[in-house]
């Protein structure tokens, strides 16, 4: 029994290790420092989005708007970073604020109107994309300051800056969900919203906070992406929400709410990154990569529903 439990809890982690073993056996380039630096740097943006989305999904909600928020926040940050006389902090603050505002808007509509999060965030996703195009007048914004471009492209002692951001955000999210009152309430709301409310939890406040957090992290991801490609792209981030949701689900977050972990989501995001990277190294066509990725998502959910059945029987 303990072994089965461990397997269940760490199933994804084991799958991740197995895939890594397989890839290091088949490709000599896979297990190198430079390759892993590339993988983690590429994964960082999806992981930031997935951390936020994990909080949302645990409360029983969903956020489809994060991809568009990446674009809006990126455009806002780029507009500010292209002004030579403004300090770096203003553009960072602007990008984060854009994300926060969209997150709060999601939260506000969801808690006040009781419209399903799927629909609200679908609407906000479209609005966000439109605003990104309006703000940028439909054109990419270039000539960003060097200090701004350091965020996505620079490194400290050889460690790319995006990886440093990823580690910091991971630690904060992990502690927030696992060790704080807020985190406990997030699980409680997803497990049984009515009971959480009757137990004295301010459900609306927590939900607002969760969507605001998710929006802000999307804002951060937008800054990171804009800085890495050194341009504010109004079309950036399209489809990112699905990768983020996939990472959370592969990492064991249940879409029915109440369960999930930040560590699991990190593994989920890394798994996606490693598989994409490995298939590239093995020269598998990107068409097949999509098919494989889809199969992995369904497999992870099957694993999850199998666990749920075992739990309740």
């Amino acid at each position, binding site marked *: 029994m303990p072994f089965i439990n461990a397997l269940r809890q760490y199933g994804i982690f084991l799958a991740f290790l197995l895939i890594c073993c397989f890839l290091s056996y088949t490709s000599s380039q896979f297990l190198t420092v430079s390759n892993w630096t590339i993988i983690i740097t590429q994964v960082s943006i999806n992981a930031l989005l997935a951390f936020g989305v994990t909080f949302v999904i645990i409360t029983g909600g969903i956020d489809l708007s994060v991809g568009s928020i990446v674009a809006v926040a990126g455009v806002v940050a780029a507009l500010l970073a292209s002004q030579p006389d403004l300090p770096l902090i203003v553009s960072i603050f602007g990008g984060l604020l854009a994300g926060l505002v969209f997150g709060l808007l999601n939260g506000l509509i969801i808690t006040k109107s009781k419209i399903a999060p799927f629909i609200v965030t679908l609407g906000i996703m479209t609005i966000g994309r439109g605003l990104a195009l309006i703000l940028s007048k439909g054109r990419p914004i270039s000539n960003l300051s060097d200090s701004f471009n350091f965020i996505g492209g620079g490194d400290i002692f050889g460690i790319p800056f995006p990886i440093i951001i990823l580690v910091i955000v991971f630690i904060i999210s992990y*502690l927030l969900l696992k060790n704080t009152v807020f985190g406990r309430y997030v699980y409680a709301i997803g497990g049984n919203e009515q009971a959480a409310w009757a137990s004295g939890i301010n459900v609306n406040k927590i939900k607002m906070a969760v969507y605001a957090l998710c929006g802000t992290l999307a804002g951060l991801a937008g800054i990171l992406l804009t800085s890495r490609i050194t341009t504010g792209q109004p079309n950036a981030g399209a489809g990112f929400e699905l990768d983020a949701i996939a990472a959370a689900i592969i990492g064991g977050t249940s879409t029915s709410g109440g369960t999930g972990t930040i560590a699991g989501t990190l593994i989920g995001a890394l798994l996606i990154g490693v598989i994409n990277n490995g298939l590239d190294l093995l020269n598998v066509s990107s068409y097949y990569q999509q098919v494989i990725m889809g199969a992995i998502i369904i497999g992870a959910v099957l694993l999850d529903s199998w666990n749920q059945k075992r739990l309740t029987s």
Partner: protein
Amino acid sequence: MLQNNILTLNNISKSFSGIKVLEDVSLKIEKGKVHALMGENGAGKSTLMKILVGLLQADAGEILLEGEVISRLSVQAILGKGIAMIHQEILMVPELSVAQNIFLGKESHRFSWLNASEINHKSKQILADLKLNISPKIKVKNLSIADRQMVEIAKAISNRAKVIIMDEPTSALSEIEVVTLFGIIESLKNQGVAIIYISHKMDEIFKISDTITVLRDGKLISTKKAEEMDSQILIKLMVGREIAELFPTSNIEIGQTIISVKNLGRKNVFSDVNFEVKAGEVLGLAGLVGAGRSEIARAIAGLDKIDAGTIEIEGVETQLDSPSDAIKLGIGFVSEDRKALGFIPQMTIKDNISLSSLEVFSKMGFVNTKEEINSTQIVYNSLKVKASGFSQKVINLSGGNQQKVVIGKVLMSNPKIIIFDEPTRGIDVGAKFEIYKLINTLKAKGLAIILISSEMPEILGLCDRILVLSKGKQKAILSKSEASQEKIMQYAVH
């Protein structure tokens, strides 16, 4: 004698991951009789019934319906053979009509074109046979819980059921509706239908059953004719020990007024409710289902808003806008619907117990786990929750133990008043007795307690005063000495 046995279960055994939940259970069910199945939660009743209707497969043993082996058939096939189950949680499609629900899965159609008038007509006939005044065209979501239950029975009859299993059918019914149900059971008996009846309510069992079987720890303890038993013997057989006194007496000095409710009202639900509860006192709220008892409880616990009147806690008028407000003022609430409002199923016992008081154990938003564990452990131990441990998930506990966890959560928040709404619903005798003892202990500690119960013996046994409601109006407040079942009913039906 032999041809009267419609259903025979021979030596049924079942294990879950190595733990025996049923061991060599044999039963004979007679035509036209009510066979009561008794036992504490976890005794194996539900498992046995799930095996009977094909939801689970037995590890050993066989089931014969009129001499034919049915133990390996699918759920649908067994239903087709004439064994139907009325579930404790009603399983119907709320958006469909009564008739559509009754004929769900066996719709009459021609070339896939549904024949609505035919099923409406047939449903009308079945409902009329049951003397039920329910329109077949009304959507199920618009029916009361009692009516839904009756529709479930109508559905079973439409399947030409020879054996109907009823699992706690009266748990959501009022006294009058129970009488209707018993009338229906009587007429089913006359038609030769065998009924397997599961209930925790003693008085019901003796009123309607012909035979009583007791299960304990997965084993068959006894099968006897109902007239050879009484409740004392039955309880002893179920728990395997004697419970000296079901309602422990207590003499506690009554203290200061804790809560005082004046002219309380909520539009179209209840109005002009006035009462006070003192420290060390238990006030009962009695009345039929729909009299407004739970609604008053919900309003005091901050779940529903009031339109009129005031609530004073220790002489201070209060404003309750949310359950959180009520908890902060020292009002604890144990809801009648523990699944919906009581606990978080995927969370551990510890996390559930500390849920309402988490902020006490935290600094700057971080939970002090050590302190949380120490404090919740004390409550957990005092409630004698039967679980593999403190970190077991609540979803895996029995009803009685889930209820203890909910009570634990309320106690953790240090309330001055606790409202218990049907605290023993669906709970076995042993756990019931522990909850009675607990109410008396809390009383002795000087808490004010409001108790809602549809079980008359509980109200009469535990309460110092009883407020009787009828259709949202307060009819009387009776003291313990003047209260009797008849008197309460007299006020309740007016």
